[in-house]
């Protein structure tokens, strides 16, 4: 039996903790079909940090970011995100908290195809009750930042994969969330486009008052990580600095 790894602590110089998990457990099913997705996960993520979660399929990466984003409830353990103890909050409170504090970037972009690009970007603000005019204006600003100001009235289907992911990034940032959760943001993109998306994320999403947790299989983007947490069988096996991970990653 291997010894339990030390908590994946944030760098000592980190000003504040965005995420603190201790002994987080999550399982699905029951009886013979019981699957332990997370087994006593300890993880710290600091503000201003970009942490990548890597590991083979089924190792629990997506479950972990779902728990961190308040989408799934942990079965056991402590989950404190941006100072909120998610395990003690009512579902409605978690939903409101998520809408205000968390931004999402999905592998499949998840843009609503019947809306324009700027309407898609404005959704998080509209959900918070921001007047449509203001929400669209803010969406336009974000689209300018990601280089798609000229395509604000386009339909998502008229954009390339990389452009759609940039729209998704704009949408994830439009309401100024303090935690950004990205699920395989580059896996559907070619190397060059993926690189561009990561540069965009680093340039616009990584800030001192925001943490970014990114799930990926894509070793081409490890260089953008501040730290890389390697998961296996529901556990965090190791946490390494981003560049060091890049150096040891077989190509």
């Amino acid at each position, binding site marked *: 039996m291997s010894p339990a790894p030390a908590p994946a602590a944030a760098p000592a110089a980190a000003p504040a903790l965005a995420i603190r998990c201790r002994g987080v457990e999550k399982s699905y099913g029951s009886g013979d079909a019981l699957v332990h997705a997370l087994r006593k996960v300890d993880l710290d993520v600091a503000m201003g940090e970009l942490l990548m979660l890597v590991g083979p399929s089924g190792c629990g990466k997506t479950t972990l970011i779902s728990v961190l984003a308040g989408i799934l409830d942990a079965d056991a353990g402590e989950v404190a995100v941006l100072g909120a103890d998610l395990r003690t909050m009512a579902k409605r409170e978690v*939903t409101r908290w*998520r809408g205000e504090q968390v931004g999402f970037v999905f592998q499949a972009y998840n843009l609503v195809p019947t809306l324009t690009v700027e309407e898609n970007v404005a959704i998080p603000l509209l959900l918070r009750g921001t007047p449509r005019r203001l929400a669209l204006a803010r969406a336009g600003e974000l689209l300018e930042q990601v280089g798609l100001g000229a395509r604000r009235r386009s339909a998502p289907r008229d954009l390339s994969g990389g452009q759609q992911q940039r729209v998704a990034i704009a949408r994830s940032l439009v309401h100024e969330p303090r935690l950004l959760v990205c699920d395989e943001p580059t896996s559907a993109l070619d190397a060059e486009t993926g690189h561009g998306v990561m540069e965009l994320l680093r340039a616009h999403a990584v800030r001192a008052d925001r943490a970014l947790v990114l799930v990926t299989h894509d070793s081409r983007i490890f260089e953008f990580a501040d730290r890389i947490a390697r998961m296996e069988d529901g556990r965090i096996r190791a946490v390494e600095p981003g560049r060091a991970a890049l150096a040891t990653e077989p190509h």
Partner: protein
Amino acid sequence: MIRIALKMLVGDRARYLGIVMGLTFAALLITQQSAIFVGLMTRTFGSITDLGQPGIWVMDPKVQFVDDVKPLQDTELLRVRGVDGVAWAVPLYKGLLKVRLHDGAYQTCNVFGLDDATLLGGPPEMVEGTLADLRRAEGVIVDENGANGKLATVRPDGTRVPLRVGDTLELNDHRAIVVGICRVSRTFQSQPVLYTTYQRATTYAPRERKLLSFVLADPKPGVDPSELCARIEAATGLQALTSDGFKTATYGYFMKYTGIPINFGIAVLLGFVIGTAIAGQTFYNFTLDNLRHFGTLKAMGATGPLLLAMILVQALVAGSIGWGLGVGGASLFGIVSRNSELAFRMPWQLLAISGGAVLFICLASALLAIKTVLRLEPAIVFKG
């Protein structure tokens, strides 16, 4: 977000049209078939409607509907006139008599014999001539459809020459002269309608001891018609019904003893079921197709009530448009068939009923969709 919900709905053109068409079809079928049903049922008491003025109909106690004539003795008229509260009472003859046409053919006609003095109960609309023309010797008024149809003369070359004012007919060996053409409500009896005076009608009718079909009466001012009916029944032993009561009795008879309600009920039900199936299934599929987007909204902080409102708005908007198109289609059908034999009557209550049915369809399909969306695990958004 409501605007977003609507754009999600109408943006998917194919599905949107599918939902709207399903609802349109349901609304059209429900409204159109019901309107035909109402039209037909209205025809059952068309004669009562046409007579208009009398508030009370007095008849044999065994009479079940307006065409179920069971003659009374003439003296019953005087007995009704003697009941306290009766302002006036007049006789009415209603019977089927054979009319001999110019070409020797016979045609059964529905003959109304009106009170000679007042001519109360005459046709609702005169096309040619006046009701007073009935006072002319041997005068009869013929309904327009009958004059142009079954009473028209057929020439050897096959062309039909409508019956005109001045033409003569023969009723039971008595001559009758057409003095007017009128327009009457269509009834279940397809025979031409003839109006004449009571005395003349009883002359035309085969000899019988009893010839008085109905006594038409009206209450004095301040007397409640229903109360007067009770008084007449108590005093004469006859059946007395208000005009509306007689319509209801006639309508009720046809509802009970004919298959009309079942036949139309099946058509209406079919429209409802098919409409529900098409619209419900399409709307449900639309929601399933958008499940990922609803999941995304949920992940981004959309609350259950907000998603509920979005889906309800989508369903209600599609329902309103579908209902509008369906009712519009049914109205168009009514306008196009206005001058045909088809019975079609679309009172506002029918619009309310079809609106209610469409609303039910929308809410039922929305409910299915809502259940799926509310149970949706937002983690679905992380599945590629």
